[in-house]
């Protein structure tokens, strides 16, 4: 069956659609200089380059003691505590703190809901903050494969659910400190400790208010 419109693929016309973003990270350049959709929130001259290879999407590169952080210039059209975030990404480095999810400010953990892969921890974590932090440690080990993360923020039902590659993560649900703030999708990479280069690839991002 063909839908008449993209709108009707996800909503009937009798339902007023809420803010929705689909980003394929495909093309020559993804501008992060304040002229396009995405914005650089990093430090120490990070790089954001579209990859010239299969499925590469965009590569974030954090350098030295700095970090790469990509967001929407604090244009917070999404409700951190009542939205769904989906992304396909891959972390590439041995010594790395990499996150993907929603944040009120791309360089702050306050009022956020995001997944963390940190080399200093064994397993993938769900971090959320509604003024105070909650850390939920899943039973899934961190890895360096392409993976699809889905975070369903549902303040109305007091839950945040983290799914990995389509499966709700074991011990991947948080029920406290769900944000009521506006937010934006954000990707972040830096060294877990010391100084050096880390990279994170992202080839899909979708966010929608629910």
């Amino acid at each position, binding site marked *: 069956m063909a839908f008449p419109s993209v709108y009707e693929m996800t909503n009937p*016309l009798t339902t007023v659609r*809420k803010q929705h973003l689909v980003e394929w990270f495909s093309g020559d350049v993804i501008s992060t200089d304040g002229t396009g959709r995405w914005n650089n929130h990093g430090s120490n001259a990070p790089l954001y380059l579209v990859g010239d290879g299969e499925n590469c999407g965009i590569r974030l590169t954090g350098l030295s003691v700095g970090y790469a952080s990509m967001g929407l210039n604090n244009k917070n*059209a*999404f409700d951190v505590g009542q939205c769904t975030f989906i992304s396909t990404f891959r972390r590439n480095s041995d010594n790395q703190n990499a996150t993907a999810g929603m944040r009120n400010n791309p360089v702050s953990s306050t009022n956020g809901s995001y997944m963390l892969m940190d080399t200093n921890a064994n397993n993938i974590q769900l971090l959320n903050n509604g003024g105070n932090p909650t850390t939920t440690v899943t039973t899934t080990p961190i890895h360096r494969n392409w993976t699809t993360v889905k975070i369903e923020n549902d303040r109305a039902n007091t839950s945040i659910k983290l799914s990995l590659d389509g499966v709700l993560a074991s011990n991947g649900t948080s029920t406290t400190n769900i944000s009521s703030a506006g937010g934006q999708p954000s990707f972040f990479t830096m060294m877990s400790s010391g100084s050096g280069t880390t990279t994170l690839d992202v080839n899909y991002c979708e966010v929608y*208010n629910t």
Partner: protein
Amino acid sequence: MTDFYDLLNPHGTVAEQRMVEYFTGSHIDNSRWVTNQLTGGSTATMSTSIDGGVILTGGGTTNAKATLGFNNVKQYTHTGSVFIGVYKFSATQASTIQTLGLSSADSNPRSAPQNAALFSCSTGATSYYVESGDGLNFASTSTSAQVDTNYHTGKLALDGAGIDFSIDGVLAVRRTDTIPTAPMQPVIHLNSDIAATMNVNYCEVYNT
């Protein structure tokens, strides 16, 4: 698993021109949209509010205008096309006009001699009306659909013989006179004497 193309086009059908704009992010995509008409201190920027999309704001001076368009690149046909927009008006004051739809011009899109198919909340009106131009004249039809300051989904469907305007999936009116006779572009237009605003967080246009 199916592909995006087949979700939108019956098998064996060649897709026609389509545009989907989510109005999300740091800046308006100025490789797609232009603001050739910003007068009287009016602005068009990305909103920082939840569901805010892009926000057009009147400059607070007499007859100030803000218009987003495609720099007069007109790819959508008068004989068969659809415009869908999700929007919120800030005001229904006597001094404010808020308009979405298709027009041949990205400045003053709602006046003769433009080809146009538009829906509006106009000066002092409490209900929507649909207006259109055929390249020579302009005319309008009022509806019974009441204007408010909530988000709504407006749809214009052109079939060459008329224009159907629906709000939130319910047909409000069909216009059959003074209908466009040439291709058009999507436009979002605010004309206000006060600092009125209009948010738009989704726009889709396609030929049928």
